[in-house]
């Protein structure tokens, strides 16, 4: 009977496999057009998901662009985009931005953020208080936080950046950023931040953990290093969810696309490779 069981299982697997192919076939009849706009930090994820989704559903057209987080829900409200990618929950008020009524937020990824400094800064840990002092302009010299005698150069993201909203909320506990000073500058994108931190001595900034390279040092906050494990076990607090906003509950191709991004296959595969953390990992 053993061989019979084996054959049955094999047949079952074959049938399931076949039917899943069949399902994919059925899904590939899905057609429509999806326009995605919004956060540039989520763009690599969106592009990758779009590529994979298009392979399974050749009739669906996906065009994605990115300008800034707030563009996402705004474009959705105006009806010029089906999905708005945003780095905070746009159905709630955050500092500087009002909530968007009538939109539904779908969590798609967990984004950890890291505080980074130039290699020449000999500091490896800062407390929340230090960070508040530095980014509000009250602490101006590295020696005040245990470093050498050199002026701190603060690099900030421009207003409206989702990374900035999250960093202010989680790392600075809501404390306001400085707005002017001889050693203060703002940059537009994560890439610019990366270049600025890598090339400017005594500089401090912050970015998604995914962008941290070995040409800069990522700081521990309150003694906890910014690692994926520390985010998952709840010790490292500076992280946020990435969201897809839709006008009401999504339907058709848009619904399928969001479902695909949230599926275990994508979350544990490509999304992990892009150095985001799957939403299922968080309790």
């Amino acid at each position: 009977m053993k061989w019979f069981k084996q054959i049955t299982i094999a047949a079952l697997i074959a049938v399931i496999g076949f039917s899943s192919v069949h399902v994919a076939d059925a899904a590939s009849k899905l057609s429509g057009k999806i326009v995605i706009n919004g956060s540039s930090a989520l763009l690599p994820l969106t592009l990758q998901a779009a590529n994979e989704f298009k392979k399974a559903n050749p009739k669906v057209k996906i065009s994605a662009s990115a300008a800034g987080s707030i563009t996402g829900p705004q474009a959705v409200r105006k009806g010029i985009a089906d999905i708005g990618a945003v780095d905070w929950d746009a159905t709630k008020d955050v500092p500087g931005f009002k909530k968007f009524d009538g939109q539904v937020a779908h969590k798609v990824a967990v984004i950890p953020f890291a505080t980074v400094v130039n290699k020449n800064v000999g500091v490896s840990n800062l407390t929340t208080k230090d960070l508040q002092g530095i980014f509000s302009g009250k602490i101006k010299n590295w020696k005040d936080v245990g470093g050498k005698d050199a002026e701190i150069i603060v690099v900030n993201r421009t207003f409206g950046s989702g990374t900035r909203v999250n960093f202010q909320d989680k790392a600075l506990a809501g404390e306001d950023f400085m707005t002017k000073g001889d050693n203060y500058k703002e940059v537009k994108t994560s890439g610019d931040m990366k270049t600025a931190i890598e090339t400017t001595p005594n500089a401090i900034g912050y970015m998604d953990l995914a962008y941290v390279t070995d040409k800069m040092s990522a700081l521990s906050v309150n003694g906890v290093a910014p690692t994926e494990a520390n985010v998952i076990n709840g010790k490292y607090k500076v992280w946020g969810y990435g969201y897809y906003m839709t006008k009401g509950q999504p339907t058709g191709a848009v619904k399928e696309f969001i479902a695909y991004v949230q599926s275990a296959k994508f979350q544990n595969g490509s999304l992990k490779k892009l150095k985001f953390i799957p939403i299922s990992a968080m309790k």
Partner: protein
Amino acid sequence: MLESSVAARTGSKPSELGGSIIAGSGKPFDRKKRLFAMNRFFRYICIASACFVCLILFLILILMFRTGVLTFRDISFADFFFSTNWNPMEEQYGALIFIFGTFALTALTLLISVPLSIAIAVFLSVFVPGWLKNALRPILDLLVGIPSVVYGYLGLTVLIPMIRNVTGSGMGDGILAAALVLTIMVLPTISRISDDAISAVPRKYSDASYALGATRFHTVWKVLLPSARSGIMYAVILGMARAIGETMAVVMVIGNTAQLADSLLKPTSVLTSNIVMQISNVPFDSTWNYALYLMGFLLLVISILMIATVRWLQRKGVQG
């Protein structure tokens, strides 16, 4: 198309042409009338195109103006133009910093780039032998095609560390870095068009000048440059326009901090960089957004003023 059809028709013999047309239709359609009609047709096409171009441009103006004036619903005229306090989080929309920054940056850029580019134009059009000229001109054109993102990146990674080393300042971002990057960007525009203008001066002028015993310096200074002045002015205007309007590269090296640039090395912000930094990050129907559109419109007004000034100076120069 027009050219070839005219050539084909005027090329054929009148008698044959007339004969066939007379045979084919009642009225003779003679060449004069046809040319006349073609002329008129061509003229209408040109007028229509000009109107279309104007329509598009005015639509853009209207878009910017209509959105921009909404700013004054919430803040006063004086606040916008004469306050240096730009802090949208607290409803402060003073644009003086950016207006000043734009003027300062453009002036500094022109100060460096105009003498340099005219020297390069003279070098190309007068000094260099023909074959080298033909090789060098496309290379200059090439500099225009380098995307501004690349210029910005080079500015950030090569120029700013250099400025930091030379001046000993902590950051290096500011008006000076931006002006140097812009100089490199407008150099090809100004020098290539000036070069064309100088080359277009009829040869007999410089021949006559040399024949009168003038040195090369004299010929260039007193004959070629004055004769080519209109073209050079146009080149400067075009370069200036690019300097005022350039964004992607400036954003990367100017520091983007809303503070008045009282030093060449202090991080600051100009109209364009501020628009580009913030326009994609503000709510659509906020005073902030309107203020950015107004700044775009202002940018246009500033360049119109600057261009008018240059033209006025030019006309005054011609008369005096």
